[in-house]
């Protein structure tokens, strides 16, 4: 450091000396030049001055001026260095203050932060991380973050670790971590790109966002729906069977009106049964417990059975059913139970939202490229403004009241979409208000 200083001073003194030398040289030359002047006097502001008198004074004045200039030059140069040092010192101090500031923010942040090394090991957990895991620094330093996951999420943790090693960022991935006491916590894990930290060139910042409470709440809600739905089945099956018995004339024949009333009870109850089934399926999807049971499935059989189920509504409204079976879609690998729910929903919607005497056509596409079921109706269609929300939960389009016969939960299409996605298929639709809709599912 002192080496640099002396070099610095040395350099600038040489420059000062050289400048002084040049200046004095120029002055001497100019004095020589003045000596050769033929005139012996100069007139300045109407006063005459003899050159001979002035000459020594000129040199003195010039010498003083030069000294002052040179002194100033040297001062500037020296103070430049100290000013530079001073600026550097101020900058360094403000930088340390900043660093101290951010260090504090990092340490005291309410969200768990970790700095990870190349191997994914925790180097610098903040206080919130220590609180989260219920550990002290020594217990967690050096541990691989991805090894701290709940055993059921092992596969996911290994996948995220692979991303980490490939330098890919991790964006709010849901995963379960396990604390020292063995508690399982749901988190959103994010890991950002490389940064340098202390002596580590390849350090990365990780954020652990605790969402356990949110998850537990969601789970409680879904479990409640499941429990309630199961409980509702007992009274609803009672009504079904009791009305069955009355309608089968087991206790004597029913009069016209008695029969109608009992039939109404039975029909409305069937609606409740369907609603409960839908609620249970939705809750299963939300809980991730919808199990797919792949079997060789005959789609045309499923369609036929759904048409039989809906035959009374179809007849009542005199709906024309057109079947275009391009292939039979027999023997495809799918879950017949779930697929039936999908087909039932689509055809039932088509019938429900079509005016009397309308047409519902069902097309089966069975080619190498595409296996699809297309349900088209000539009904009320879906208004354009409602189309993007049609698959969301509890949504019914604005024009459902056009046909007084329609009753719906707003869950059907949400369920259908969830099932299709779970089975690895897809659903799409085209619709025009008052012209009709076409729904296509690909398997």
């Amino acid at each position, binding site marked *: 450091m002192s080496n640099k200083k002396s070099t610095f001073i040395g350099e600038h003194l040489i420059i000062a000396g050289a400048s002084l030398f040049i200046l004095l040289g120029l002055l001497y030359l100019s004095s020589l030049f003045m000596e050769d002047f033929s005139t012996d006097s100069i007139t300045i502001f109407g006063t005459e001055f003899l050159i001979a008198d002035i000459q020594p004074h000129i040199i003195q004045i010039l010498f003083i001026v030069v000294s002052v200039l040179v002194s100033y030059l040297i001062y500037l140069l020296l103070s430049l260095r100290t000013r530079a040092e001073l600026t550097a010192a101020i900058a360094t101090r403000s930088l340390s203050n900043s660093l101290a500031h951010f260090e504090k923010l990092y340490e005291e942040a309410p969200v768990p932060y970790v700095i990870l090394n190349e191997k994914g090991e925790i180097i610098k957990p903040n206080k919130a991380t220590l609180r989260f895991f219920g550990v002290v620094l020594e217990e967690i330093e050096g541990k691989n973050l991805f090894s701290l996951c709940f055993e059921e999420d092992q596969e996911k943790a290994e996948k995220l670790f692979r991303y980490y090693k490939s330098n890919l960022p991790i964006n709010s991935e849901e995963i379960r971590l396990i604390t020292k006491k063995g508690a399982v916590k749901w988190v959103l894990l994010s890991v950002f790109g490389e940064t340098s930290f202390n002596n580590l060139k390849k350090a990365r910042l990780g954020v652990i966002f605790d969402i356990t409470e949110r998850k537990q709440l969601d789970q409680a809600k879904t479990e409640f729906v499941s429990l309630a739905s199961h409980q509702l089945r*007992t009274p*609803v*099956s009672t009504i079904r*069977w009791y009305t069955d018995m009355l309608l*089968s004339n*087991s206790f004597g024949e029913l009069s016209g009106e008695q029969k109608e009333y009992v039939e109404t009870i039975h029909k409305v109850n069937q609606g409740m049964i369907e609603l409960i089934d839908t609620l249970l399926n939705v809750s299963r999807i939300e809980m991730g*417990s919808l199990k797919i049971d792949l079997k060789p499935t005959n789609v045309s059989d499923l369609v036929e059975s759904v048409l039989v189920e809906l035959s009374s509504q179809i007849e009542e409204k005199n709906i024309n059913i057109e079947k275009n079976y391009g292939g039979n879609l027999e023997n495809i690998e799918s879950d017949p139970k779930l697929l039936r729910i999908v087909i039932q929903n689509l055809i039932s919607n088509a019938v429900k939202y079509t005016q009397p005497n309308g047409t519902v056509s069902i097309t089966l596409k069975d080619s190498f490229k595409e296996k699809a079921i297309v349900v088209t109706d000539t009904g009320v269609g879906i208004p354009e403004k409602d189309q993007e929300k049609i698959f969301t939960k509890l949504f019914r389009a604005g024009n459902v009241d056009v046909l007084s016969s329609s009753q719906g939960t707003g869950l059907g299409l949400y369920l259908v979409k969830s099932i299709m996605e779970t089975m690895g298929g897809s659903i799409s639709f085209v619709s025009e208000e008052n012209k009709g809709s076409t729904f296509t599912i690909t398997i």
Partner: protein
Amino acid sequence: MEEEQNKKKVLVVDDDDNLRRVLTDKLKASGFEVINASNGEEGLEKALAHHPDIILLDVMMPIMNGQVMLSKLREDEWGEKAKVIMLSVIEDSEVIAQAVVDRSLAYFIKTDQSMDDIVKRVKAMLED
């Protein structure tokens, strides 16, 4: 009377009084002899005492539920081969899987079945 002797015996095990009553009425009207139980413990006793030709077994019951009753039934020499149809409101795959393991002939959800459906199934199961 000979007719009485030829009637097949059905044991209905369900904790819900209404459902038990309507099942009993329907099965009797369809030509069966019907025995009742309102929980798994009573059901097990009556099954071992009367050796019914088929048992309609609910799952959710107090004192002893249907799953436990079925596994205990299978420990008995006669009970091991008894014909059982599970009739429940629960659709959990674990419960259904357990019923399969314990060799119940079928597992039906109550709300999926009409009275006639149940009689049909019972008759079909008794054929073999």
